[in-house]
């Protein structure tokens, strides 16, 4: 009798475990159809495929490597850039047309504290960061110091710099 009770208890426990696990595995409550999509969660909105560099290559590929203080947000903007198409075989290039591109950016005022690589003539530069959620940019906080691997970005002016890499371009300095 005791043995049967033990067996029944084990079966009961297995049933209790199996039901929720199977339920979640086969997404019984989550059929991602148009009328049931959950688009409310905060998620990275900008994702990249990137190379991974050793430190020496990171430095070599950067125009400047600096330690700087993220003083303030100078501007949040969507700048329309009119430029030549990059693909010479494209319909736009063949017609001799220029293209227009627009993307939201945050322009930070970066105060340079140390130049590790490259040359800078000004003590303050514009740091161009996409104004879109991304796990690597989201760590930036005004007032904090960062080591930054930067590339000159003339689309945003002659004192503007962008990151070399999203995942490796920003290193917080304690």
């Amino acid at each position, binding site marked *: 009798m005791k043995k*049967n009770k033990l*067996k*029944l208890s*084990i*079966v009961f426990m*297995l049933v209790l*475990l*199996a039901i929720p*696990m*199977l339920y*979640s*595995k086969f*997404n019984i409550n989550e*059929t*991602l*159809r*148009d009328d049931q*999509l*959950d*688009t409310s*969660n905060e*998620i*990275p*909105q*900008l*994702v*990249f*495929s*990137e*190379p*991974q560099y050793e430190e020496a290559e990171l430095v070599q*590929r950067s125009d400047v490597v600096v330690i700087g203080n993220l003083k303030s947000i100078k501007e949040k903007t*969507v700048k*329309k850039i009119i430029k030549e*198409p*990059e*693909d010479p*075989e*494209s*319909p*736009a290039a063949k017609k001799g047309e220029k*293209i227009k*591109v*627009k*993307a*939201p*950016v945050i322009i930070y005022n970066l105060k340079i504290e140390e130049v590790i690589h490259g040359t800078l003539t000004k003590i303050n530069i514009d740091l*161009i*960061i*996409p104004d*879109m959620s991304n796990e690597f940019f989201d760590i930036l906080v005004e007032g904090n110091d960062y080591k930054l691997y930067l*590339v000159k*970005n003339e*689309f945003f002016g002659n004192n503007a710099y*962008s*990151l*070399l*890499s*999203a995942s490796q*371009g920003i290193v917080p300095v304690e």
Partner: protein
Amino acid sequence: MKKKRVFDEKRISFILIIALLVSTISYGYVDLGYRPPSADRIYFIHYSMSSTWANRAYSAANTWNNVNAGVKFIKGGYCHQEMDVQDSYFSVMYDSFLAYGWPADANAGFARFNTGDYGDIVMNSLRSWGDGNSTSYLDGQGLLTHEFGHSIGLGDVYSASDVQTGNYTDVTMYGHSDYSMLNSYGQRTLHQDDINGIRALWP
């Protein structure tokens, strides 16, 4: 005479244990946490892309279509309007990342601005591109296949814990590619974990 029971405790326990084991095998994919507004993903080739790039995009989209999951990429032809990552069109573009303020050495990006936006794919013209397996360029079709994966909600795979069926650097959704890694050409072909991912997100 004692009647033999078809469903005795031993058999039920055995079935339940098998069910538990099956349920612990997780899908090997990363969920970006985003779903586009429709399972019909109409994409446009921006007119700054050549037919070579357009054909790479068509092949990449067809790679996902061939899985026969609950989402489909549909050709929308060439688009001529300005490239605005905040609009609701799903465009594929080839351009300098610096014009967008994006990292100069990233290979490619997928951007979604608003909740429910279809997003845009931009291939970075500051990188070297080609067709095939080479240490001097990235395979355009391979990286486009990766980016189309983002556009249906698959995230980047960065570690062995993200996959179930092999080496994580072999999957199409692996987040790193470089000339020296020789992995972009391999990204043309979906790995079992990529297939599991699209099927789980779009049953």
